[in-house]
């Protein structure tokens, strides 16, 4: 105790607090899916991605490569997803009058993609 002057004590205190900061930062490196909320979010994302892959398969079989398409789906998510799924094999245009096909997505009880079905209408 006699050798622990104020300077040394302060150095120890600073070291302890700084190490605590590092430990606090590192403690949340636990994979997010170990929490219930994280697992549920991952499940939702997985389901959505499977749905998109299913729609992409329908798109590839329904529209010939190289054709031009216009996405008329409502909703930001489906508009972006259909544009993404059409790339790069199809030419995407924002003008429906110039497209060979119009793309939309609808919900159907019989929809094979988790209740969704791709609608392809000749332009």
């Amino acid at each position, binding site marked *: 105790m*006699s*050798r622990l*002057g104020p*300077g*040394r004590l*302060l*150095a*120890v205190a*600073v*070291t302890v*607090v*700084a*190490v605590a*900061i*590092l*430990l*606090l*930062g*590192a*403690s*949340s*490196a*636990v*994979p*997010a*899916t170990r929490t219930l909320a*994280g*697992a549920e*979010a*991952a499940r939702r*994302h*997985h389901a*959505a*991605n499977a749905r*998109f892959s299913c729609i992409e398969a329908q798109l590839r079989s329904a529209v010939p490569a190289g054709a031009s398409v216009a*996405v008329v789906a409502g909703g*930001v998510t489906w*508009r*972006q*997803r259909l*544009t*993404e799924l059409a*790339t*790069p094999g199809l*030419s*995407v*245009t*924002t003008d429906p009058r110039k497209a060979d096909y119009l793309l939309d997505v609808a919900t159907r009880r019989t929809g094979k993609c988790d209740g969704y079905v791709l609608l392809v209408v000749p332009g």
Partner: protein
Amino acid sequence: MAGALLRSLLVLGGPAVVPVLALVGGRPVAVLLLLPVGGLLATAAATMSVLVGGGLGPWYAVLALAANLAAVVPLQRRGVPLRASRRDVLLLLVVIGAAGYPLLALRSSAFGYDARSIWWLHARLLTSSGGYVAALHNPAYDFSHPTYPPLLPASVAVAWLLHGESSYRLAQLIVTAFNASAAALLGWTVGQVYGSRRDRSWAALPVAALVVLAAFGIAGGSATNGYADLFTAATTATAVVAGLVLPRGRTALAVAVLCAECAGSTKNEGLVNAALVLALVALRYARADARSAVTPRRWSGLTFPLICAVPLAGWPLAVSLHGGRLMEVTTDAAVPQSTGYRLLTTAAAIAGQLHLLPVVAVLSLVTALLWWPARRRLRLGSSGWLWLSFALGVAALSGIYVAGPVEIRFWLATSVGRTTIYPRLLLICEAATIVRIALSAPLPPARDVAPFAHG
């Protein structure tokens, strides 16, 4: 999938071996730089593909060959002696191991929204010759921000071309590998703050591991779901530590420049921060050269970082020549928001992410006031450089949010946790440096405070 991942990493990291050895020598850090430098080669290939035309694959092969040929002469001149102490090898294993633990999340993590809408859509465009240039002129792709820098999409596209299919799972694994290598590189670089003094070097191992884990902890799910934020932030933070904190030297400067190039080639905010960091590095080295009695060499610390900043302009130039708008954003603000409102909302949101700032700032001040001789003895850069990087980074981020037309509350809610990874990593790095300095603080002379101890 494991085989495809391994082949992809070999194709991306393999061509980087000779150039990395030429730049940093036979040091263990070379292992951690292979993937990031491979990403820079992919970036250059994407830039040439857009600028000149031609497919990504052929350009990647040509530029990889050119980079290796260009590195042969410097490598022969420098030689490749293996410079790896036992501590350095242990440190490398520790940071790689620490970066491996959070990857357990890959068992269940899914692809994120931006991964599909931005990075992997860009990769799809890069796999078709001329597709990216067409997208720059096509408003259908405005939501995807095709002017964003291409390091990760180009790297993913190289892997897809290799395997002949566009697998999103493979893309997720590759992006995560880049994130992990950047986190490990940051941990390694912070470990170098602990130098090689035998009596303190053992602390480098647990501190470096904590820094790597903290990088993943701060990034959260975005580390493994295909997002580019951790790679951008960790490479920028590594550039700060290597160029502004570590003792000045050739290897530290090379690591700083390479990491800044990576950050600037990945995201727009990375580009802004990389340019700022390179300017600060050049200033630090120039000040030291000016005070030095030695005549500055031709490749002085001032000119090297500034010259290396030039390639950062390659991609922005390429997309601009094709009519791409560098700061284009989707416009969805139904009601105009005043600058003052956006500024206050942004400041509150960013402040809400920087919980550690007050404590780290106080510790840093105490350390600077009381133990600056220890810092000088360790030849570490002044903490002012890191704090200046922090302030400039936060200011640049705030400016982007205030000036953008996206509805500010939605924008902040969906991104501020990721865009503040960089400043939060700087706080972690400063805490790690404080530990080093506090451990090195001189002990007071021993004195007998119990005068009657001996009777």
